[in-house]
């Protein structure tokens, strides 16, 4: 059985290997031992929302700095977990386009967070093969990435997509409070 999205390409675009873009993404990477860690986490969470607004308005990302900021900041687990719960039923399509684009332009070493985020959306959409393909990209980028391992187990358990979405919605306020409070 095939779905509309099964053949959707999630392979890297040329921008992913652009030296200047890679440097820009690296400049936003979060060092877990940094003294201003909380500021960077807040900056990352805000950047995710700002980029989603841009995708909502224009359908594409026109600000390379903002795109690189999101990709770099997603290296932090808190920012990634915040991003995990940001989409709703109304904004699903916007986030779908956004994470799909970011997955295709993420440089090596920055693929796993966005690949796991896109995998969750694919799973919630009912496209489990695409969700697994996305997890595969995450594994290639970071073989022992924790969320990839967890999602593989969750998807493998046959957990209903609706239950997964409910879990995300339930956890999101707590994650948000952890970053902004």
């Amino acid at each position: 059985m095939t779905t509309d999205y099964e053949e959707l390409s999630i392979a890297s675009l040329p921008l992913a290997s652009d030296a200047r873009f890679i440097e820009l993404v690296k400049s936003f990477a979060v060092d877990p031992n940094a003294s201003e860690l909380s500021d960077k986490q807040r900056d990352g969470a805000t950047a995710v929302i700002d980029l989603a607004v841009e995708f909502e308005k224009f359908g594409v990302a026109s600000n390379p700095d903002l795109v690189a900021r999101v990709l770099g900041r997603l290296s932090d687990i808190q920012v990634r977990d915040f991003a995990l719960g940001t989409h709703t039923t109304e904004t699903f399509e916007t986030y779908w386009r956004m994470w799909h684009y970011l997955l295709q332009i993420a440089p090596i070493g920055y693929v796993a967070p966005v690949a796991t985020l896109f995998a969750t959306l694919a799973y919630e959409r009912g496209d489990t093969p695409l969700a697994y393909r996305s997890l595969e990209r995450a594994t290639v980028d970071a073989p022992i990435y924790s969320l990839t391992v967890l999602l593989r187990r969750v998807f493998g358990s046959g957990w209903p997509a609706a239950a997964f979405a409910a879990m995300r919605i339930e956890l999101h306020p707590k994650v948000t409070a952890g970053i902004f409070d």
Partner: protein
Amino acid sequence: MKRLLILILLIGFSIPTNAVADCSTKACVDVFTENNQIIITARKGSGGAATKKPVVATPKPKPTLWFPPKPKPVPTVKRTYKPRTKVKKVAAQSINLSDRIIKMVPTSTIAYQPEFEPLVHVPVIFWCDVPTFFQSQVTLIGEVIDFALRPGFVWEFGDGTSLQTTNPGAPYPNQKITHTYKQPGTYIVGLVATWNGDFSHQGVTRAISGTIKIPSFAVITVVSASSRFTK
């Protein structure tokens, strides 16, 4: 040619006869997992198509000009015995019985101590409220089936570390499952409980095919301890 025909006839008749004999003489019971549920099925009988009466075409009456003779009066006989009551027909050997039951395994909830703002570099105790053993007995078409399942747990602590165990953990002072966070932050803790087991029927124990995986999640906010020096 004749031998080949005999061989075909033998094969053709022997397989279904054996299959029928299996479930017609004793009940066929199976326990397996499907959609994270335990399915128990039992079947007794020939197992093939349900017993049906042969359909005999009754000829429609043709219109004739012949009138049947009036029935002769039947002499009334005084009954000295009890009139016959309608007796239910005993089920024939070819009748099929089958039933199916769906059972759920316990779901788990994650708990941890200290409940309020655990500190970095201090072990956090985790546990879940899942029994280490889940057993049940069901009766299907008169057959008693016992089954038992045991869980295994995979913990993902949200910071990149995981733990595989068969122990559900417990609150303090039990410290079977602990994890120490190195960085302050809010982490999504995931737990996948995997259930495996076996079932027994008429003294025979067999493995339940498949596993049941139940995920559960929790959020934990770990804070750094601020030092305060006083005089």
